[in-house]
Structure formats: structure tokens, C-alpha cells
């Protein structure tokens, strides 16, 4: 990166040098020296600076951007690592659209910082110093007439630092808010959320325009200052220079070079406009990343985990209590599930069936009591081990945006299409080809199809305990029966835990519990229905 900054400074100096050298060259030529050879050095200088400047600029841009892009890739991964520490609790922390627009804008702001801040700043400083020092050697007043306008220009950019930063910040927040609200509104437009969102979106859009207008004011004011300073410096250099030449203090040939160089120096000031905002963006981006890094996930793995035993696992809940807010969802629940058994939990909606399942997959830890797998408390085992031991079909049946095949291979990466076909038939999904694109979050499939894909995926995973949350809620009775048969066929003797308010899954059960008022109540298993499956 330092390389790019150095190249940028050299390129700017070369530009100023070129202007100066050509001015001197033609002035010297106009004085018609005795032989042309005395001009050769100047001619060579002019050519070298001409070619050198273009080459330097190209090299600077490539080095700078290559570095920025590499930094961007690194930051993106770093961000992913920060985020991936979170489990299900992530969704409650941030709106999804918000999360993405932050990630993207923040990475952009941070990766481009060097190109937008130190690079133009150092180039400007190099040019301003060179001009001021050179003119100081000739005459202090001349140095003041060229140096002060350059300084004022830089000073104006510096005073704009705070307002520009505030505006950039505002605009970024507003854009982010607009985009997040729009995504929310589109996602919710089926249930009339969109109509209500429109006034707010309109207001946000207006506010974005107002901040853009304020930025525009800052921009033209800077342009005015820069151009006025340019006028002052150039006419100042000309006036004082001519004075010095007539007085004999300054060699005549230098005058044109001086004026042209002063004009060229202001080109380096052009880039100072965007500097304050870029700097502010980077600071807020870093602060946000830090906030994420400092946030502790709801569930973390132990520093030195115990490993789970091989083979079938016994599952136990011992005196488990869960409170959410002031509601006690589970109150001292005991449950023992022997390996290979099927347990079905029933109970009214809101009784806490899903909460109980989340305890098993460690999306949540109980407030009291413990959950153990073959005697090992879940918090002492590695998170990845627990998640490998269990597979879950969540009630919402989330799908990846991809093909059907890709979704199923999430559970079993080696699944071939030949193996897949009979499975799809078993789950009444044979009308979909493995390449079928499921849409964002599976929205191209019907609710029932989505649930079946998710159930099949849970069964395909090489887990030892299969957990199904409301597997048949969206299905008509015929399909429901088919799916239950499919579950039984692909269970392969594994422990099965189902939460359902529908009666049909009870047929699979070795044991049925009703969850009500935070307690589990055993019910007799419906052995008579078992034959149906």
C-alpha cells in the first residue's frame, strides 16, 4: 500500500514538474540561446516526465486497487467469521437486509479507505511542499502567494470534515434504513404490510434527497474556494514573478515555468473533496464491526469439550426450566428417551414444544436443569458434535436459495441423483426434478412441498437423533400418510422426536407426552394405529 501512496505522490510531482519544465523550455527557446544543445536537457526532462507521469499513475492505480480488493476479500471472511459464531439468536439481533447492507457497505468503506484518504492527501502534501519550498528559495512573498492559497484550499477541505462526515453518515443510515424497510415491506406485502410501509419509505427517500442536497452545497462551496484560490495563486505568481524578473532577481525563463507549475499544483487539490466523508465512513464501519465482535452469542461451546460416545445416544432432560421474559415455558421438565425410541410431543399451541426441541439442538440453554446425551451435559460437548448428533426439521422449513439437490446435499454431500429419485417418490416430490430452483427461502415451492423437502433433509443427515417439528402440519391426509411412511422407511432405527398437534404422527410413537402448563404428561401410545404405517 505504501507503494501506491509513493507512486501517487511521484505521479503528482511529475505532473507539476512537466508543467514547469515545458514553461522553462519554451521561454529559454524564445530567448534564442547560441546553440540548441543547451536546450537538450530540458527537452529530455519534458519527455521523461511526460511518459513517467502516465506510467506512474497507471502503476499506482493497479497496486492500490489490487491491495484494496485483497483487503476486501479478507474483511468479508473476517465478517463472516464474526457472524457465524451466532446461531439462531442472530436473527433476533438484526434485520436480515440490514445485516447485509451493513456488511457490504462497511467492507467497501474499509477496503477503499487507503485509496480515498491517505493517497490523495499525501499527494497533495507532496505537491504543496515542493511548490512552497521551491518558491521560498526565490522569494518569501512569492512563496506566500503560491503556498497560502494551497493551504487555504486544504484548510477548507479540513473544515468540511465534520459536516461532510455527518452527512455521509446520515445518508448511509437513511439508505440502509430505506433498503431494510423495503425488503421488510416486500416480504410482508402478502399480509398488507406494504401499504402501511409506503409513507415511511417516502419520508426516508425525501430525507435522502435532502442530505444529498446538503452534500451538494458542500461540494460547490469547495469548488468555489478551490477555483478562487487558483485564481489568487496564479495571478499572484504572475504578478510577483514579473516583478522579480524586471528587478533581475529571477531568471526570466523561470517565470513561465513558475506560473504553469502553480496552475498544475491545484490539480492535486481536486481529490480533497471526497476525503472527509471517506474517512468518516471508515470509522463508523470499524465501530460497527467492533460492536459485532464484542457481542457474545447466546450459546457458546466449551473451551475443552468432552466428546460424545459413538453409537446410539440416550437423551435426558433433568428438571429443565425455561423462562422467556416473564413467561415460564417449561417448568422442571423430566424426560428420558432411550436410543431408537420414538417420542411424540403434543399439546396446545404455544405450550413450548418448539422451545423444548430448541433445547435439544442447543439453540437455547435452559435456565435451570440440564439436557444430556448419554450422560454428557450438552454445554460440555462441542457445539459441532451436538449438531452432528442431531438433525432437525424446523417448523418454518427454511430452504437454501438453490436447487432441490443442493438443499438435500446439505445433509448428505455424496447423495447421487439415482439415490435421490426414489426418495423424492416416497415423499410425493417426484414431480420436481433435482435441478428445480426453490426460490428465495423456498418460496417457489408450496408450503407442503417445502416441509417435505425439509423433513427428507433431516432424515438424510447422518445423525443419531432425528427431531421433527410439526412434520405434517401443511399436508392433506393422503400426503400426510405418505410422509409418515417415508419417515418410518428412512429412520433406520434412529431415535425420533416429533412435536405435533396432529393426531396422525402419533401412530409412529412408542411414547406420547402432552406438554401443558410447562409440564410433560405421559399418554398411552396408540399401538392400534401403528399398523397403518
Amino acid at each position, binding site marked *: 500500500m505504501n507503494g501506491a501512496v509513493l507512486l501517487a505522490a511521484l505521479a503528482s510531482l511529475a505532473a507539476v514538474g512537466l508543467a514547469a519544465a515545458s514553461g522553462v523550455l519554451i521561454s529559454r527557446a524564445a530567448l534564442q540561446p547560441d546553440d540548441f544543445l543547451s536546450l537538450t536537457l530540458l527537452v529530455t526532462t519534458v519527455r521523461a516526465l511526460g*511518459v513517467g507521469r502516465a506510467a506512474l499513475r497507471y502503476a499506482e492505480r493497479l497496486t492500490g486497487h489490487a491491495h484494496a480488493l485483497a483487503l476486501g476479500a479478507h474483511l468479508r471472511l473476517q465478517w463472516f467469521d464474526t457472524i457465524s459464531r451466532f446461531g439462531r439468536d442472530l436473527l433476533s439481533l438484526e434485520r436480515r437486509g440490514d445485516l447485509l447492507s451493513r456488511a457490504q457497505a462497511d467492507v467497501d468503506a474499509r477496503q477503499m479507505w487507503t485509496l480515498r484518504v491517505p493517497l490523495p492527501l499525501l499527494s497533495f502534501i507532496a505537491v504543496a511542499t515542493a511548490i512552497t519550498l521551491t518558491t521560498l528559495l526565490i522569494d518569501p512573498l512569492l512563496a506566500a502567494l503560491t503556498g497560502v492559497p494551497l493551504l487555504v484550499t486544504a484548510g477548507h477541505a479540513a473544515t468540511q470534515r465534520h459536516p461532510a462526515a455527518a452527512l455521509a453518515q446520515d445518508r448511509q443510515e437513511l439508505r440502509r434504513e430505506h433498503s431494510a424497510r423495503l425488503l421488510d415491506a416486500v416480504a410482508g406485502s402478502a399480509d398488507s404490510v406494504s401499504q402501511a410501509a409506503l409513507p415511511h419509505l417516502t419520508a426516508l427517500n425525501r430525507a435522502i434527497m435532502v442530505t444529498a442536497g446538503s452534500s451538494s452545497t458542500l461540494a460547490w462551496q469547495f469548488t468555489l474556494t478551490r477555483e478562487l484560490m487558483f485564481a489568487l495563486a496564479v495571478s499572484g505568481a504572475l504578478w510577483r514573478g514579473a516583478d522579480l524578473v524586471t528587478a533581475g532577481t529571477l531568471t526570466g525563463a523561470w517565470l513561465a515555468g513558475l506560473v504553469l507549475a502553480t496552475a498544475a499544483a491545484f490539480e492535486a487539490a481536486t481529490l480533497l473533496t471526497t476525503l472527509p466523508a471517506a474517512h468518516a465512513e471508515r470509522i463508523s464501519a470499524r465501530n460497527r464491526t467492533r460492536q459485532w465482535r464484542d457481542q457474545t452469542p447466546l450459546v457458546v461451546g466449551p473451551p475443552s469439550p468432552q466428546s460424545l460416545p459413538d453409537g446410539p445416544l440416550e437423551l435426558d432432560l433433568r428438571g429443565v426450566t425455561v423462562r422467556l421474559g416473564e*413467561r415460564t415455558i417449561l417448568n422442571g421438565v423430566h424426560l428420558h428417551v432411550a436410543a431408537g425410541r420414538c417420542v411424540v410431543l403434543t399439546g396446545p399451541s404455544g405450550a413450548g414444544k418448539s422451545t423444548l426441541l430448541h433445547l435439544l439442538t442447543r439453540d437455547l440453554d435452559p435456565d435451570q436443569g440440564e439436557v444430556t446425551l448419554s450422560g454428557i451435559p450438552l454445554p460440555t460437548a462441542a457445539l459441532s458434535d451436538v449438531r452432528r448428533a442431531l438433525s432437525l426439521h424446523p417448523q418454518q422449513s427454511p430452504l437454501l436459495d438453490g436447487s432441490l439437490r443442493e438443499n438435500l446435499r446439505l445433509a448428505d454431500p455424496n447423495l447421487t441423483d439415482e439415490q435421490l429419485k426414489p426418495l423424492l417418490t416416497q415423499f410425493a416430490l417426484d414431480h420436481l426434478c433435482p435441478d428445480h430452483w426453490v426460490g428465495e427461502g423456498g418460496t417457489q415451492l408450496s408450503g407442503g412441498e417445502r416441509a417435505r423437502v425439509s423433513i427428507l433433509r433431516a432424515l438424510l443427515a447422518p445423525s443419531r437423533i432425528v427431531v421433527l417439528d410439526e412434520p405434517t402440519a401443511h399436508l392433506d391426509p393422503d400426503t400426510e400418510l405418505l410422509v409418515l411412511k417415508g419417515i418410518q422407511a428412512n429412520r433406520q432405527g434412529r431415535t425420533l422426536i416429533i412435536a405435533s398437534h396432529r393426531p396422525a404422527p402419533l401412530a409412529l410413537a412408542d411414547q406420547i407426552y402432552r406438554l401443558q402448563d410447562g409440564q410433560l404428561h405421559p399418554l398411552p401410545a396408540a399401538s392400534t394405529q401403528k399398523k397403518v404405517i
Partner: protein
Amino acid sequence: MTFALLRRWRAAPPPPQHPLAPPDATHLLRELGHHPDVRQALTLSALLSLISTLLTATFAVTAAQAIATALLDHRLPDTAVTLTIAVSLIGRAVTAALRERILTSMAARRLHDLRADLTHAALTLGPVQLSAQRSSHLNLLDTDLDTRLAPYFARFLPARWHAAITTPTLLIVTALLDPATALLLAITGPLTILFLWLVGLAAHAATDRQWQAHTRLNARLLTVTAHLPLLHLHGQVSTYRRVLKASAEQHRTLTLNVLKIAFLSGLVLEFAVTLATALVAVWIGVRLFGGAASLAPTLAALMLVAEYFAPLRQLGADRHAAMDAEPLAAHLAALRRMTPVLTGQRPTEPGPPTLTFRDARAHFPGTGGAGCSPLTATVPAGTHVTLRGPSGSGKTSLLHALRRHVPFQGEILVNGTPLQYLDADAWRAHVAFVPQHPHLLAASLRVNLSVTRPDASDTDLIDVATQVGLLDLIRHLPQGLDTPLGEGGLHLSGGELARLSLARALLTTPALVLLDEPTAHLDPETEAAIVQVIRAAFHSRTVVLVTHHAVNFSAQHLTLAGRAA
């Protein structure tokens, strides 16, 4: 295994329904600029460009004269000359600031309109049509609007005019001062433009690819983030991290390739400018040495060389801005073109409607009506019916068609008027929809309840909450209506979500209520209770309830045939 996955994802084609950038993105971008506001700002800016160019020429001529006087005659320039220099430079400063002001505020206004358009289009299309679009796409469109389009309006469009005016004007001035220099400029100028055009063509193709990679990278980041719980569940976080890393790498390479070419156009220009300056300077030097020219006009010509190339250089830099904007313009146009349901003009009669279906089924453009079975039935005004049928037979899609969110085939009549003749917005205002999975906002319970009617009072909210059986929940929450809800309803059970959704519908006092399996997740007792709530609350309104269960809801059952039928 990982490599197989990587290959697959890399090779994964975009979904067939995915509207890709149409071929003529340049044309679409130009269309965005066809607006009286833009035209007016550009005209003003062109006028200012001309004034500024003339002032620059005046400055160069007088400054060169002053230098020549000092150098050759050893005397100070006249006051008039000094004054002219100062005045022309100050005039230049004012015109430059004015131009910037006019252009940037025009860009801000234009972007405001475009964002409003985008918002409107996205909301009109709704989630069903947009599901083929990825939400990251929409997100990118919305957040990138300013960064990608503002430079196009504020810089690229005026830069073309600026170049078109400045370049010939300065060429004429130079020709008057020093024909030899003008000849050199007349040759190098067009050559530069030719080079720029050639390099631009190459960069153009690369930019499209880069935009796709950028979108895909962000889409992937969004997908992976949104599905982190799912990935954790299957122990696939590290696999997808590798996928992400690989696509980031791909993105980096692609972008760098684009930049190599894009910067090449910069290089060409820089070379042209600096070489022309060097050539002119050396040639003038040679002629001055030989006494074939005089200093004042040639020096003025030399000073104008940089000014001659400045607009071309600016155009080269801003051309990049235009290329950046093109894919965005194309996607914006694609989104606007997608508007599915042409709205009619007729107003909707107040009161519960009578619905008549004749071979009606939802029709998705692209996929056709695959899987959707037709319905022929009549639903008299104010009656409650259930709509049943096997999973995947198109029940939900038919409800979306009724809401005018997706097109349909066959006939749907509302009080005898074909549905497509009704004003779509007015019609939607009469219809409430209770979805399978109600969408939660990351906001308080109050906001989530009142989304359908933001002006509802707390009394109204408590009233509807009582009707749907949510009152107990609200009473038990420490913060009551102010309790925040997370995305996906982390703290609400499926049943409570359904009740929330019913409460939202109740608030709008609709004439027609469409319910899409709101009770699928409820136990039989609660389901029965909710069905009672629906019957009582929506009494004397037309209600269509999609369900799989045999619920005690209504006398009339509509049935969609299965796929095989």
C-alpha cells in the same frame, strides 16, 4: 466433497425465471436521462461550459502576453492585463461552482424519483413475483442507486456536453494563436477518443461480468447469513465459508481484470495529454529557437493544451461511471417491466363481494400454470367458504391471484365485473390476506399489530387482540405492547403468530378476507377456537379459507383437483 460443492455452485446457473440484464443496457441508461429536469440542467451546464472556456482562453492569452512582456521586454505587464487575468479566473471559479451546484442538485432530485419508482415497483410486484428475484438483488439496487447513478447524472452526462463544447472552441482559439499546435491537437484529440472507445468496448463486457459476480457474491453472503442456523444444524458452516472464500477470490480476480482495462483508458489519456504537452512544448521550443514563432501566442497555446485534454480526460474517468451505472439501469428497467398485473380503471363497490370463478387458476409467467388446477365456483356475498385440495394444487397461488399479486388464467368475476377491470390498488384495499407465515417486523408488538393500520389506537389494538385471544399474552409480557419482536418471531409460537396475523386483518375491516392455512400449526382445540374467531369477526363478509383439515367452518367447500387430474 468440498470441491464438488464448489464446482457445482460456481457452475450453478441462475434460476431460469431470473430476469437477466437485457442486451441494450446503454439504451436503458440513456432513457433514465430523458427527463425535462435533466435536459434543463444539462443546457444550463453547457452554457456555463462555453462561458468558462472563453474565460480560460482569455486567461491563457493575457497571461502569456504578460510573461512574454516580462521576459523579452523586461517590464511589468499593464494593470489592464493583470486585471483581465484576475477577472477571467474569478469568472471561471464562479461558473465552475454554479455548474457543480446545478448538476448535483439535479442528480439528487432524479435519484429521489428513481428510488420512489423502484419502491413502487417492488411493492406492486409483491413477494410472489419477486421471489425469483433475490432480495439481495433488490437490496443492492436500492443501496447502490446513489453511488452508481449519481455520478452518471452529475458528471458523465454533462461531461459529454462539456467536452463537445470545450474541445472545438479551444481548437479554434489555438488555431488562431498557433496553427502548428492546433494541427497537432486536431490529430491527437480524435486519436485519443478512438483509443478510448476501443478500450471502453473491452471494459464494457468485463463490467457486466463483474456486476454479476458482485451481485452473486452479495447474494451468497446474504443467503449464507440468513441460513446460518440451518448451516450450523448440518455442520456445513466451514464448507460454505470455503464457498464464500472461493467466490470472493473469483470476484477479486474479475474486478481486477476490469480495472486493468478501465485504467488502461486512463493510461491512454494520460499518455496522450502528457505526450502532446511534451511534443507541443518541444516543437514550440524548436521553432522559437529558429525564430519561426513568437513567444506570447505559442505560450498561450501551450497553456491551452492541458485545458484541451482536460474534458476528454474527465470524460474517460466518468465513462467508467457510466459503465458502472449501466447494469444497474438494466436491472431497474427489468424490475419495472416485470409489473405483472395491469390494473383496470373501475372502482370497487363497497360491501362484501360475490366471487365467480370459471376455470380460474394462477398463471406464473415463465413457468406457466404448472401444477395449478382450475376452479369453477361461485361464492355469494357475505358467505364463508373453505378451499381445499391436495398439497401443491395451487390453492395459495389462487389467493395471490385474487389479490392481484400474480396473473391468472380463466375468469374471476367480482360482482359480475372481471377482476382485471378493477383498479388494483383500490381492490387490494378491500381485501385482507392472512398468510401461512405472517411476516414479522423487527419492531415492537404494537408496530407489528398495527402495520395494516398505523393510525390504530391502543384501544383498537387491545380490542382486536381480545377477539383473537392474544390479550393474555400481552398482559403477561413485561413491556406489554412495547415488547420487541425479532425476525421470524423468535418468541412467538406458531399459534400466537396466526393470531397476530388475524388481528392485523381485523384491523383493516375488509370486505373480502382470504386466509391461507392460518390454523395449520394449531392444535385441534385452539384451531376450533380460532375458526370460531374467524366466523364471528368476519361475519357477513366474504371469506375464503384455504385448509387441509376438515374444520367446522362453513357449509360450502370448494375443491381443487390434484395434480393428476
